């Protein structure tokens, strides 16, 4: 067994989570498993059909009873896929016959109705212990595994899918056509409706089977992980080797990796070794000391019950004013709610000012909407105050305002980058180049925390003055 190649993450966990892991496995492998199910089930279906000709109820019962025959190949396939090997095409016939092995006979006879079938299957198929040891092993593995619930729920899931399909067919066929007689589908085994219903049931079985088998397998794996510490082994194997002795360690690890530990490796193919291992496990006195019991306790809701009791205590005849009170209470409540709503609606009413006056570029309008000369003096003041970062900010705002006047609409909150982009798409080169330089300097100052030198701002300012002068003449 090569735990490194595991395609599922195994860890000790509550049974429900193990079942969910099984469902996840089945979902990942669904197409292959489903096809495999039909590979065994279809020949059998036809064979039984020939035997039980015209008795659809017997046909369905026989097929239902033979479920373990189709489930066994699924389990074998899953046990290979878990270790990341997909069986070759040549191995398929052998796998398909897995369900007919003599040791699976109990599953087809007295164990067929066992609620633990999902868990028994991997035990019989992969371990194949003799009677007494098998029972002891099953007891160990089934402890707290919820396998009974799994069988019960999966049985109902099948029924739900079957009912859903049948009802869906019934509802979807228009009335004029020969619809499905639902009563006959459940009742009259000679009617065509019953055959359709049986086929639906078979389909539902095929859809649920991969999930059921994989969930049982996951329960089995999780229990073994818990009992044998697979997850710990995996973590230990992944542990870093001792630094001084990396090479010897590798040499030591290599046989472990390449030739798996004997007792574990031959678990599936060699029942002898497994039997010895199991006996060993079972002999251990500390075995199975931890026990997790899940109880279902009735949920009581005192609050709810309290109000009900209060109402009960009203004798059988309600006072005549009660209904009226409730009615008027309701109407008053509604009236109050309406009033509150009207008040809220009034507050939410549309503003009186036309909206267009309130939009526009915030950086360009508002407190910075000043004349160009003001801008320049402001920038100079900031430069004199030895704050080139603020100066470049002011210059940037001033140039934005200029762009706005040139008819370049800039959305509120536009970034420097998008302003430059818009400018370069619409404006001539002599404007957009200096603007891009200003924007770049501003970006560095604002986000990069690299204020430009005063000389650089001076240069940009003189460019801007020229550009402003020219555009201003328009």
């Amino acid at each position: 067994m090569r735990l490194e190649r595991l395609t599922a993450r195994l860890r000790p966990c509550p049974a429900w989570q193990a079942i969910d892991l099984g469902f996840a496995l089945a979902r990942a492998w669904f197409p292959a498993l489903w096809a495999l199910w039909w590979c065994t089930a279809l020949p059998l279906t036809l064979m039984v059909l020939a035997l039980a000709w015209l008795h659809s109820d017997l046909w369905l019962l026989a097929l239902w009873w033979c479920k373990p025959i189709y489930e066994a190949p699924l389990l074998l396939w899953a046990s290979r896929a878990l270790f990341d090997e997909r069986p070759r095409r040549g191995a398929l016939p052998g796998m398909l016959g897995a369900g007919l092995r003599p040791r699976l006979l109990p599953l087809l006879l007295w164990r067929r109705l066992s609620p633990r079938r999902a868990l028994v299957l991997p035990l019989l198929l992969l371990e194949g212990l003799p009677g007494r040891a098998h029972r002891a092993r099953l007891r160990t593995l089934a402890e707290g595994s919820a396998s009974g619930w799994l069988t019960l729920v999966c049985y109902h899931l099948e029924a739900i899918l079957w009912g859903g399909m049948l009802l869906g067919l019934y509802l979807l066929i228009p009335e004029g056509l020969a619809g499905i007689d639902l009563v006959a589908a459940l009742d009259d085994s000679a009617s065509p409706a019953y055959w359709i219903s049986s086929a639906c049931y078979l389909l539902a079985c095929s859809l649920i089977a991969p999930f059921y088998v994989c969930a049982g397998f996951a329960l089995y794996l999780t229990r073994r992980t818990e009992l044998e510490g697979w997850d710990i082994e995996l973590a230990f194997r992944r542990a870093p080797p001792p630094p001084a002795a990396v090479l010897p360690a590798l040499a030591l690890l290599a046989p472990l990796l390449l030739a798996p530990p004997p007792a574990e490796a031959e678990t599936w193919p060699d029942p002898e070794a497994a039997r010895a291992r199991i006996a060993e496990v079972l002999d251990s006195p500390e075995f199975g000391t931890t026990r997790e019991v899940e109880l279902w306790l009735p949920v009581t809701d005192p609050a709810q019950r309290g109000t009900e009791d209060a109402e009960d205590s009203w004798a059988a005849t309600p006072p005549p004013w009660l209904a009226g009170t409730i009615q008027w209470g309701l109407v008053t409540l509604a009236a109050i709610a309406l009033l509150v709503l009207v008040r809220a609606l009034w507050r939410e009413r549309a503003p009186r000012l036309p909206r267009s006056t309130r939009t526009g570029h915030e950086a360009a309008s508002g407190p910075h909407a000043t004349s160009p000369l003001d801008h320049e003096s402001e920038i100079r003041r900031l430069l004199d105050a030895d704050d080139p970062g603020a100066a470049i900010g002011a210059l940037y705002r001033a140039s934005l305002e200029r762009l706005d006047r040139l008819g370049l609409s800039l959305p509120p909150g536009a970034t420097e980058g998008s302003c430059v982009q818009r400018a370069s798409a619409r404006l001539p080169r002599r404007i957009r180049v200096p603007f891009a330089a200003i924007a770049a300097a501003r970006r560095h100052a604002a986000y990069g925390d690299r204020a430009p030198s005063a000389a650089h701002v001076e240069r940009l300012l003189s460019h801007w003055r020229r550009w402003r002068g020219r555009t201003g003449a328009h």
Partner: protein
Amino acid sequence: MNRHPREHAEPIDTLRLRETPEGIDLGLRVAGPVPRALALALDFLIRGGLYLLLLPLLALADLGIGLALLAIFAIEWFYPVVFEVWRGATPGKRALGLRVVHEDATPVGLPASTLRNLLRTVDFLPAGYALGLAVSLADRDFRRIGDLAAATLVVHDERPATRRGPASTAGQRPPPEFDAATRAAILAFAERAPALADARRIELAEVLTAPRGVRGTAAPALIADWAAWIDRVTPDGRAA
């Protein structure tokens, strides 16, 4: 041997990691149809019990019928919403250790809970949640239609970790190159060693200790010593 095409793919798991705004990963274990179906059945019974509690109202003639109808309306549409928003899960889900959360691992709120429970009517179609079952079997996170539309997940509740057994022995310092995962495995080994068979315990321990030259019954003892050392609060070598 045919290799799996996704040889280096992530192992199949029901754990989903969600990064919180604070930059840490929270693990969510999505819950599949079996526990959810059982929770639903349990909720169904509880709802039936609530309806039974309404029966005495019928003694109040028309008024009682009116109140009972209102209560039935509330129960049939808002029973799950009330419990999910208030406690994070309906009583049935709580009994099975399930919880409803947004996909980003935050507790479910009123809009999402309302949406997922209104869409229950569609999941129920054509009978007994057949459509919801089919959709949740096909979905990687076992979400039914309501969950898909409302961006919610049904997850297993994380149980509080019970750790830190008594460290009786002084222990021995483990090799420094061991990473966090290995240390965790060492502690897990110490915790679960009593449940393991003797031979298996030694075999398991040797995986770690053999490269360091320790074999046989000394191996589990060495790991137990390491575990005792790790388990104490002071990993820096000073006495606790």
